[in-house]
């Protein structure tokens, strides 16, 4: 059984979803790579920001 911690699961999710978004939502290879990286940063970054917000609210 695979038991990743929460952040590893977030990174795996962001990686696979970004690959699919990048390839399907843009036309040219350069724009695919750029959009894929953009999506990955947004996925992972928003998870980090929201985690800190919830941590600060819970204190």
């Amino acid at each position, binding site marked *: 059984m695979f038991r990743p911690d929460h952040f590893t699961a977030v990174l795996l999710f962001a990686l696979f979803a970004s*690959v699919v*978004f990048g390839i399907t939502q843009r036309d040219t290879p350069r724009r695919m790579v750029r959009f894929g990286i953009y999506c990955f940063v947004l996925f992972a970054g928003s998870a980090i920001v929201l985690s800190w917000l919830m941590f600060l609210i819970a204190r």
Partner: protein
Amino acid sequence: MRYSQKGMATTPNKLTAAQKETRQGFVYLPLIAGWWVRGTLLAVSIISMFALGIAMQGKIYSGAHDILEMLGLVGDLGNGLLYVVARVLGLGADQVMVTTADYGRAFIVVAGLLNVIAAVDAHNIRTGRKA
């Protein structure tokens, strides 16, 4: 431009965006050069996501008793053959017992939705809506 040349194809202006990128030396081009490579990347991503969901003991929806389960079932059905194989082999968990199983459930549902996106994209390429 002379009147006799008007309407004739001029090669420098007829380059596609992909050809322009090739001429400019896009370094990552070999990674996603052709549709075979892109299709392989899509398949690897979606199948890996589904497999990881199963490995995390994620739940495979088999029926729809309420609206949330119905949405989950729709997402799972997007996996197509993977869903059928998982049901036949009895993979996944019936109930979410541990935290990672909840991550796994989300992975399986999202893999199905990404598969639908990939299928729509393939249809758009076939019909010529996307280059």
